């Protein structure tokens, strides 16, 4: 695993709390705007930044993140921009990783992507549509660059599947709390605790739970059983609802602080 990513989970464990993982798409509403928003997320208390690489066909995402990705692509965001955003965030002492669908990584070149990301200070990559069966080359290049790999498990995953996914994972394990796409939900699924419990019996990897968290209370309830609480759509929505980038920074920092309290209770 990547040392800096590991240190984030180790420090949280010492403090007997969960890690707050915040997702935001690079290039939304602009490249510079996304850096400012993510910096505000870190100021509010986000521990690990999940920098989204905008993709034309984001199958795992609900309407909020889809709209943001479309906007980022219309504004001309590229993979080069994502690497630049990661680099800027590293300079700000943040700990960034990237969440990307597979095709843009493959097109950029696996080795080139992993190398540039590592040079920019990236600590990991989440690949929602890459299966371990197809990940041989990816495992080799990310191991060589000490980039943490995160694969996903879902409530429908069998124990054998969880084991296979865990073996391919070298960052945290991403547990999708529910069957479905990203988006704010009033209630975080009760399938998540069961899934995390099953995964704990199989792997020692830290486990992050995502899909649906938007409030302090939800963050607290997920933090009770998971090592990481992943929040995405709520941040994107806060920026979409803000009038300008300064208002967006303010809203995002406040939301981040609220969620940071949640993971500490």
């Amino acid at each position, binding site marked *: 695993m990547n040392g800096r990513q590991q240190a984030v989970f180790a420090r949280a464990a010492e403090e007997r709390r969960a890690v707050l993982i915040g997702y935001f798409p690079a290039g939304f509403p602009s490249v510079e705007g996304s850096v400012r928003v993510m910096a505000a997320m870190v100021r509010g208390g986000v521990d690990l930044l999940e920098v989204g690489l905008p*993709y*034309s*066909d*984001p*199958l*795992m995402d*609900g*309407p909020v993140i*889809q709209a943001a990705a*479309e906007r980022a*692509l219309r504004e001309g965001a*590229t*993979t080069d921009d994502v690497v630049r955003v990661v680099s800027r965030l590293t300079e700000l002492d943040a700990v960034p990783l990237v969440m990307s669908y*597979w*095709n*843009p*990584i*493959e*097109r*950029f070149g696996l080795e080139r992507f992993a190398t540039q990301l590592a040079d920019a200070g990236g600590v990991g990559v989440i690949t929602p*549509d890459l*299966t371990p069966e197809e990940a041989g080359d990816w495992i080799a290049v990310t191991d060589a660059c000490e980039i943490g790999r995160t694969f996903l498990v*879902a409530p*429908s*995953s*069998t124990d054998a*599947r969880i084991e296979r996914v865990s073996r391919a994972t070298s960052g945290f394990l991403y547990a999708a709390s529910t*069957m*479905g*796409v990203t988006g704010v939900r009033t209630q975080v699924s009760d399938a998540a605790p069961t899934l995390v419990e099953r995964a704990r019996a199989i792997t020692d990897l830290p486990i992050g739970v995502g899909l649906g968290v938007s409030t302090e209370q939800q963050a607290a309830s997920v933090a009770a059983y998971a090592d990481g609480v992943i929040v995405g759509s709520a941040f994107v929505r806060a920026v979409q609802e803000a009038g300008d980038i300064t208002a967006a920074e303010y809203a995002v920092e406040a939301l981040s602080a609220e969620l940071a309290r949640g993971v500490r209770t």
Partner: protein
Amino acid sequence: MAALDELDAAFRDAIGDPTFTATLTDLERDYTGRPSPLTRARRFEVECGGARVYLKREDLNHTGSHKINNVLGQALLTTRMGKRRVIAETGAGQHGVATATAAALLGLDCTVYMGEEDTRRQALNVARMRLLGAEVVPVVNGSRTLKDAINEAMRDWVTHVADTHYLLGTVTGPAPFPEIVRHFHSVIGRETREQIIATEGRLPDAVVACVGGGSNAMGIFSAFLDDPSVRLVGFEAGGEGVDTGRHAARFAAGTPGVLHGARTYVMQDAWGQTVPSHSISAGLDYPGVGPEHAWLHDSGRATYEPVTDAEAMDAFESLCRTEGILPAIETAHALAGARRLGRELGRDAIIVVNLSGRGDKDVVTAARWFGLGVDPTE
């Protein structure tokens, strides 16, 4: 993965069960109207360099295209898995209509996702689906065409997988979908092979089909893969011309990539973002192509060529006037290809064209194209 594993197991169990196959065969005969005829196109073939041209008449199937073959198979599979609901994507609307039909027949709930752009150019099929009791959801994301309808159907499926089957309409998507869809369309190729041998006493020199996702082509190609003397040619949408950028020519202008869970040829930019495709025919307007076609292309067993909107519409008009058959605009791409190939192969050649669908749904588009002054939307 759990859903795909479940589907894979159910599919293998079903095709090994004689009762399942017998039920499907009965439906194909009594409901679809199979076998579909193989019609010699005596007047059209004059334009094909004098080659003998046969049309495999999938347009005469119930619902008007080959799509019903796959739909009946997967709908039976749905009930066998104990699921109550089917969802589907549709481009031209033929797969959506076929799915809505099978859902009505078997008493399943049905939701069809269709790009908003396509709901406009295929309004007739939207009405047909709704008459059949299906819910049609216009998709307003991305390019608002078939690719985005597939995205939305996949999102629905992962959310409702416990009671829902995603009845994918073409030979793409993650395994086992390409294999399942090919299997249920392979009846086209099996019948064609028997019919042409009964009529001509030999195999054809070429078998041609249009290729969007590629289901009708895979269905007819599948019976001839081991016959090296039979040329297999797929015709993809050249749109306004491959050099204009406005086309759906994945083989002519795409590059290998991953789209919708399949590694195949994709229209993409330098960053791996999917590039919007264009074709006058909604059913060919897709930036990816079935992965088995990519394999046939790379192995050299099949070849693929673009046909422009204009060439397709010219062939469309020609088949109407020479044979009294109004083909789907998708299919017209294969007919234009047959003309091109016939002139190359010459007089003694035998060409089979998969006439994958009828063109009633395209009357408005065609009337506008030919300036017939009968456009009911104007």
